[in-house]
């Protein structure tokens, strides 16, 4: 490698952290939509999605059906890859590196190591440095985000509470992550050690945040976005893009809802535009109160 890197176009390393994080950066300001088949993928692309997440059941259905939720059928992922020109993401269970290897072999563009699926390992997340394909991981707080980044995640998303259509958990997670980042930028050198201990995160990453005032990878929002105003809310709070799971295809008019969320995410500070695109959308997905839930997906992962 070293003898070709000085030749123009000689060394061409793939799967570097810059290349992985780079794709996450290209998705900023966009909407990533959960889709379960090629037809939904086309609807997402037509509406202006920046990427699609291929999965067999949207989180609301996983929640309803119960049982063990696993990686999707490769045939279904291939069908979606063939249907759209957008980046295609897919989910692996937490710690299930063999599912991740299968997804990498299928050539997906991003792997979501996701709490929406049933965890496969109760102590270890996937060693994401071992892969050339980038990973996104969920987090409920800054410590969790930094642990995932230290394992090689190229993007962090809030966990929220997937499949509920209730934004309150995503807001809590975003405020927690961004609030602690703000505090760390005010901390002195001695306090860094205490922060690293409290967050159970590498000191180097804490020091980097103190200097830059942001995560070393993009921070997106997921888990509970059901309306254009939800998207505007989390973007104003500091999310850099949004994932919409059940919120599109569990609404009464998915095409219209998808398009409206895309517009509201791009123009998140323009309230009159958000008002306009929110008009006449039909019913958003039915929401659920968090206190009534049997399973809290956000508690999966550590």
């Amino acid at each position, binding site marked *: 490698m070293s003898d070709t890197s000085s030749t123009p176009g000689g060394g061409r390393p*793939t799967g570097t952290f810059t290349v992985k994080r*780079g794709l996450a950066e290209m998705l900023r300001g*966009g909407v990533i939509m959960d889709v379960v088949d090629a037809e939904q993928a086309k609807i997402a692309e037509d509406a202006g999605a920046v990427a699609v997440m291929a999965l067999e059941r949207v989180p609301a259905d996983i929640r309803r059906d119960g049982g063990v939720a696993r990686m999707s059928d490769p045939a279904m992922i291939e069908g979606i890859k063939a249907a759209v*020109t957008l980046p295609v993401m897919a989910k692996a269970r937490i710690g299930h590196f063999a599912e991740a290897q299968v997804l990498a072999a299928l050539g997906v563009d*991003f792997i979501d190591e996701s709490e929406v699926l049933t965890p496969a390992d109760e102590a270890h997340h996937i060693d994401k440095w071992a892969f*050339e394909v980038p990973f996104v991981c969920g987090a409920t707080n800054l410590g969790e985000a930094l642990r995932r980044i230290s394992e090689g995640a190229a993007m962090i998303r809030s966990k929220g509470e997937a499949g509920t259509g209730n934004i309150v958990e995503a807001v809590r997670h975003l405020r927690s992550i961004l609030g602690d980042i703000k505090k760390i930028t005010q901390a002195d050198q001695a306090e860094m050690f205490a922060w690293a201990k409290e967050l159970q995160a590498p000191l180097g990453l804490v020091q980097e945040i103190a200097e830059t005032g942001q995560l070393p990878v993009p921070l997106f929002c997921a888990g509970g976005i059901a309306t254009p105003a939800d998207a505007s809310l989390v973007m104003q709070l500091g999310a850099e893009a949004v994932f919409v799971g059940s919120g599109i295809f569990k609404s009464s008019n998915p095409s219209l809802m998808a398009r409206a969320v895309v517009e509201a995410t*791009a123009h998140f500070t323009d309230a009159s535009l958000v008002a306009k695109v929110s008009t006449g959308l039909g019913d958003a997905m039915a929401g659920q109160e968090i206190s009534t839930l049997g399973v809290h997906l956000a508690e999966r992962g550590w």
Partner: protein
Amino acid sequence: MIPTIGVLALQGDVREHVLAFEGLGVGVRDVRRPDDLEGLDGLVLPGGESTTLSLLLGSSGLFDPLATALRGGLPVFGTCAGMILLATDVRDGREDQRRFDAIDLTIRRNGYGRQVASFETQLAVPSLGEALLPAVFIRAPVVEAAGPGVEVLATLPGTDGAPDRPVVCRQGNVLVASFHPELTPDRRLHRLFLDMTDEESG
């Protein structure tokens, strides 16, 4: 006069371009609506998803005034998705994808492959000096053909029998790159673009 550069801020890696130009000491403005185009000395179309950008350019009402400004000579710098939007011919795009037809290039979207094929390399760009330019290609578009009026500033040598491909091109007021100079610290391409805005106003 300190020039003001606009960065199309509908979607994509807007922040990296903003930071790059701020680092060069010029004024920078996010562009989301037609009136944001007022008084700009140059405009950047960043990396992102070209299908999404095409749609949002239409719905925001930016497409037509921007097309008019480009025909009127507004200097523009497109990286990756931005290059796709500026080209005259786009392959593997959507039927309804809109283009500015501002530079005579035939482009194949994602022509270098999916994310697993994305790569980093070092490019020779003779007009920018001897040092190689770091270049990050992410699901990058391939320039399959460049018209006679297009000046090719850098070429990526082909491997495994594939042809060499132009990766930095210029035609009049339009500068494009297949890769993302905004993701690496080398600012020579951003400087070159500022020089183009100087020529335009001078």
